[in-house]
């Protein structure tokens, strides 16, 4: 659902700041999907919804490595857009949850492409001309590039909120078979979490199995 104008503004600013946190400024990892979606849900008035969207995306985003010039999806603005739009959906709407997660995956990919576009642009606007250069010039070029990244994050977030909000309002009246959704999301999240073992190395499979056993015990006790 499309939030009201003040909420849109706040979510846009949050998306811009989290886009900066991902690469340009800080890298404190406030832009992780679970944090970004939780904050967006809080702003949009449905923190619980934001956390559910965020934890699913966090699981799927775990194995993304932002190494050098590699292409990778961008989580922050996509998470803010998905959680912000999902916040207005009816609490029990599994179709809205599923659509938000699918959208977040697609929007994160698009965000990654926009980062590539910005890096090509930076080669034109943020690299000083050859020859001696004043430090103030370098500082101005650098800060301009940071400004472009912030604007890109705001734009990605606002566009995402409008696109997903419209989609969710349409899906709201489309009949949907709900009973598959939650198990499917849980299985996807579990598989994604398990896939992170590949980062640590398969030789650590016994440690993974020990953790899984501890998880099974906890589930049995509930």
């Amino acid at each position, binding site marked *: 659902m499309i939030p009201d104008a003040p909420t849109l503004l706040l979510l846009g600013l949050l998306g811009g700041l989290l886009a900066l946190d991902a*690469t*340009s400024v800080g*890298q*404190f*990892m*406030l832009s992780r999907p*679970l*944090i970004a979606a939780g904050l967006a849900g809080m702003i949009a008035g449905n*923190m619980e919804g934001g956390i559910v969207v965020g934890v699913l995306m*966090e699981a*799927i985003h*775990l*194995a993304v*490595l932002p*190494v050098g010039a590699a292409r990778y*999806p961008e989580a922050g603005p996509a998470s803010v857009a998905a959680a912000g739009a999902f916040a207005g959906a009816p609490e029990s709407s599994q*179709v809205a949850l*599923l659509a938000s997660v*699918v959208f977040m*995956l*697609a929007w994160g990919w698009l965000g990654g492409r926009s980062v590539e576009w910005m*890096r090509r642009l*930076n*080669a034109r606007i*943020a*690299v*000083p001309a050859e020859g001696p*250069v*004043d*430090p103030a010039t*370098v*500082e101005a070029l*650098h800060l301009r*590039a*940071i400004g472009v990244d912030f604007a890109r994050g705001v734009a990605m977030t606002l566009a995402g909120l409008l696109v997903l909000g419209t989609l969710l309002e349409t899906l709201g009246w489309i009949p*949907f078979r709900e009973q*598959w*959704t*939650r*198990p*499917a999301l*849980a*299985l*996807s*999240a*579990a*598989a*994604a*979490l*398990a896939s992170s*073992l*590949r980062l*640590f190395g398969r030789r650590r499979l016994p*440690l*993974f199995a020990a*953790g*899984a056993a501890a*998880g099974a015990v*906890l*589930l049995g006790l509930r």
Partner: protein
Amino acid sequence: MSELPRPVRRAMLLRSLAVQGSWNYQTLIGTGLAFVLAPALRHLYADDPARLRASVARHAELFNAHPYLAVLAAAALARLEADGVPPETVARFKNAIRGSLGSLGDRLVWLMWRPACALLMVALLLAGAGWWIAVLAFLVSYNALHLWMRAWGLRAGWRDGLLVARALREAPFERLGERAGDAGAVLAGFAAVLALGWGGERGWAYAAVGAAALVAGIALGPRIRWVAAVALTAILVAGVVLHNNP
């Protein structure tokens, strides 16, 4: 060699947080490195504007490093400038360290530390902890290493200059990465099983499908992202199409 004044060091440390602000496909973080170095260069060449401008231009050329270790390079470069090392030697030094600063940081932070801390956050949440607690645990554990690396890099780079490779060898990066990998593997298994529980289903059939999902996740690795995207999209479409066609 005297220390860099505290305000200069503080400015370099703060600026290092934005070293990737102008990342581009031509000079990578070259402009960012010059941005971080600028306070030190202004201090060193306060009486020689021509040398200052020439030095800034040299350091704005192609460079890359892991962002948390870029400040190590910046501090070492400041030390070389302060020692009057010839520009050709400085250029060779930059070429020599950029590969190791990238691979060391990538392996420790992106491959081990960050996933392990993120898994801690997810595991805490799925185990029933509040969102604030899970997020706080992640931010504190992750940024403890992050901020230590920046502060250590600034000190070690200035202290060791050309010999900075020694500091890199002596730093506990390898050991930290190993321990983070161990913890991450345990947390991955723990969180994956708790995520299955979130599905709300019971019984042996669901448990078998869940076990198959874990095996598939391990087998697919990072490709799981695309498989999950296709599967969830198919379920979304099927849920709409099949609603009236049971």
